[in-house]
C-alpha cells in the first residue's frame, strides 16, 4: 500500500514527464505492433494460400490407360493425397478457352489442342504441407508418362523467404524499440529519483532496507511500460476494428474465409510481459546508477 502510494506521489510530482514517457513508449510499441499486425496478416495470407496449393501432374500425350491406372493406384495408396481429379486434354482445352473467351476466334483458329492431360491432387492439410508437396512432386516427376509436376513452388518459396526476412526485421525492430523504451523509462525514473534525492538520502540514513527504497521506483517504471503497452494495444485494436469494418468485404473477394487477424493472445501477453520487464529494467538501471554513488562513498 505504501509502495503504491509513493509510486503515485512520484508520478504526480512528475506528471508531464510521466505522460511524455508513456507517450513515447506507446509510439514505440505501436510501431512494433503495426509491423506485428502486418506480419500476422501476411502469415495468415500465406497459410491461406498454402491451403489452396494443389499439385498438378501433367501427363505425356501418349499415356496409356494402364499407365493412368497405375498412377491412380499410386495416388490412392499415398496417405498424404486426399483426393485427385483427372483433367483430360479436351477438358483442359475447354477450360482454357472459356477463360480466354475474348480470344476465342484466335484459339479456334489454332486447329489443335496444345494442352496436356493432368491430375489435380489435393494434399492433406498440415503444417508440413509444403514439404510434403515438394517431396511428392520430386517422386512423381520420376514416374514414366509424367511430363512435369507443378505447384507454384517459386512464388511460395519467394513468399516464405520474404516472411523469414520480415521475422528477422521484426526481431531487430522489436529489440531496438525495446532498448529505446528502456532508456526512456530509465531517464524518466532517474529524474524522479533525483527529484527525491533528499528523501532517499534520509531513507538511507534512517536505515531503510534496499527494497523499501527501490520498490516504488520499480513500480513506477513498470507502470510506464504497462500503460504504454495497454494504450498501444488499444490503438492497434482500434485500427483492427476499423480495417474489419471498412475492408472486410474486399478481403473476402480476395479469398473466401479470409479476414483481418488481430495480434494473437500469446503475442499480447509477450508484449505486456516485455513492457513489465522494460519498465523494471529501466528503473533498475537508473537506481543502480544513483545508489551506486552512495555505495562508492
Amino acid at each position, binding site marked *: 500500500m*505504501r509502495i503504491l502510494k509513493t509510486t503515485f506521489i512520484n508520478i504526480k510530482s512528475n506528471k508531464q514527464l510521466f505522460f511524455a514517457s508513456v507517450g513515447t513508449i506507446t509510439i514505440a510499441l505501436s510501431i512494433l505492433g503495426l509491423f506485428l499486425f502486418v506480419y500476422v496478416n501476411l502469415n495468415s495470407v500465406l497459410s491461406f494460400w498454402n491451403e489452396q496449393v494443389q499439385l498438378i501432374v501433367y501427363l505425356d500425350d501418349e499415356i496409356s490407360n494402364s499407365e493412368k491406372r497405375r498412377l491412380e493406384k499410386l495416388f490412392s495408396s499415398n496417405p498424404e493425397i486426399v483426393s485427385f481429379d483427372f483433367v483430360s486434354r479436351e477438358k483442359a482445352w475447354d477450360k482454357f478457352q472459356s477463360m480466354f473467351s475474348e480470344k476465342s476466334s484466335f484459339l479456334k483458329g489454332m486447329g489443335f489442342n496444345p494442352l496436356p492431360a493432368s491430375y489435380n491432387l489435393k494434399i492433406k492439410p498440415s503444417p508440413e504441407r509444403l514439404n510434403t508437396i515438394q517431396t511428392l512432386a520430386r517422386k512423381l516427376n520420376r514416374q514414366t508418362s509424367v511430363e512435369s509436376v507443378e505447384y507454384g513452388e517459386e512464388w511460395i518459396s519467394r513468399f516464405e523467404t520474404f516472411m523469414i526476412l520480415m521475422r528477422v526485421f521484426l526481431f531487430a525492430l522489436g529489440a531496438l524499440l525495446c532498448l529505446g523504451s528502456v532508456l526512456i523509462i530509465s531517464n524518466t525514473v532517474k529524474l524522479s529519483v533525483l527529484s527525491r534525492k*533528499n*528523501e532517499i*538520502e*534520509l*531513507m*538511507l*540514513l*534512517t*536505515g*531503510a*532496507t*534496499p527494497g*523499501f527504497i527501490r520498490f516504488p521506483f520499480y513500480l513506477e517504471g513498470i507502470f510506464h511500460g504497462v500503460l504504454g503497452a495497454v494504450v498501444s494495444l488499444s490503438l492497434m485494436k482500434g485500427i483492427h476494428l476499423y480495417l474489419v469494418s471498412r475492408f472486410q468485404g474486399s478481403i473476402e473477394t480476395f479469398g473466401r474465409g479470409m479476414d483481418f487477424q488481430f495480434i494473437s493472445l500469446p503475442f499480447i501477453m509477450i508484449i505486456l510481459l516485455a513492457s513489465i520487464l522494460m519498465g523494471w529494467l529501466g528503473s533498475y538501471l537508473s537506481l543502480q546508477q544513483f*545508489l551506486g554513488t*552512495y*555505495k562508492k*562513498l
Partner: protein
Amino acid sequence: MIQLYNVYKSYNNTPALVDVSFIIKKGAFVFVTGPSGAGKSTLLKLLYRWERYDRGQVLVNGINVGKLKFNKLWQLRRHIGVIFQDYKLLPGKTILENVAFALEIVGAEKKIIRYKAWEALKDVGLSHRKDAYPLELSGGEQQRVAIARALVNNPKILLADEPTGNLDPEMASEILHLFEKANQEGTTVVFATHSQNILREGDHAVITLKRGKVADTRIVA
C-alpha cells in the same frame, strides 16, 4: 558501544583522519571538537558508514562497520540517529509527517506511527505545531524536529554533526539539553561541535581532533 582502532581515512591522498583510536562506552555523552577541517564530520560519517575508511577498524554496536555490505547497512543505521547542522527535513511534509517518516522507514505498525510521532514531537515541545511545514518554523524549532525524528525509533546511538551550528546561544543550549535528556534515558551521544560555549556548558568527555589526529581526550567515559 563505539570502538576505533588506528583508523585512517584520506580524500584524494589528503589525510582526513590519521590513526584515530578511542573507545566510547555504552550510555556515554562525548563531544568531538576541533577546528574546521579537523575531521569531525568525517569521523561521524565513518560511524554510520556514510563513508568508508582506508585502514583500521571501526566497531559500532558490535558491528564491524568496514565489513558491512551496502544492502546490509540498514542493520547498522537502524540503531543510530543522525542529526545535521542543516536539519535535513523534507519541506513537502508536515513536521509530524517528517517524524512519522522515520517510523515508516523501519516498518513500524501503521496504528502506532501517528501516536509515536506525536509523542516524539511532544518530547521536544513541538506537538502544538504538528501540522506546520518545516519552513514555517525557526531554525531552533527545525532542529528540534530533527531530534524528534532521530529519537523516535529509540536509537542506541545519537550522532550529531554541529547541530547547533546555525543557532543562537540560547537555542543552542536548549538543543544541548535535549541531547542530555536522551542521554539520561540511555542513548549514547556523540556530539560534534567547535563551539567552546557548548563544550563549557555540557560537562562531558571531549575528544579533540587536530588535522585528523586525536590531539587530546578528556575523560572518555
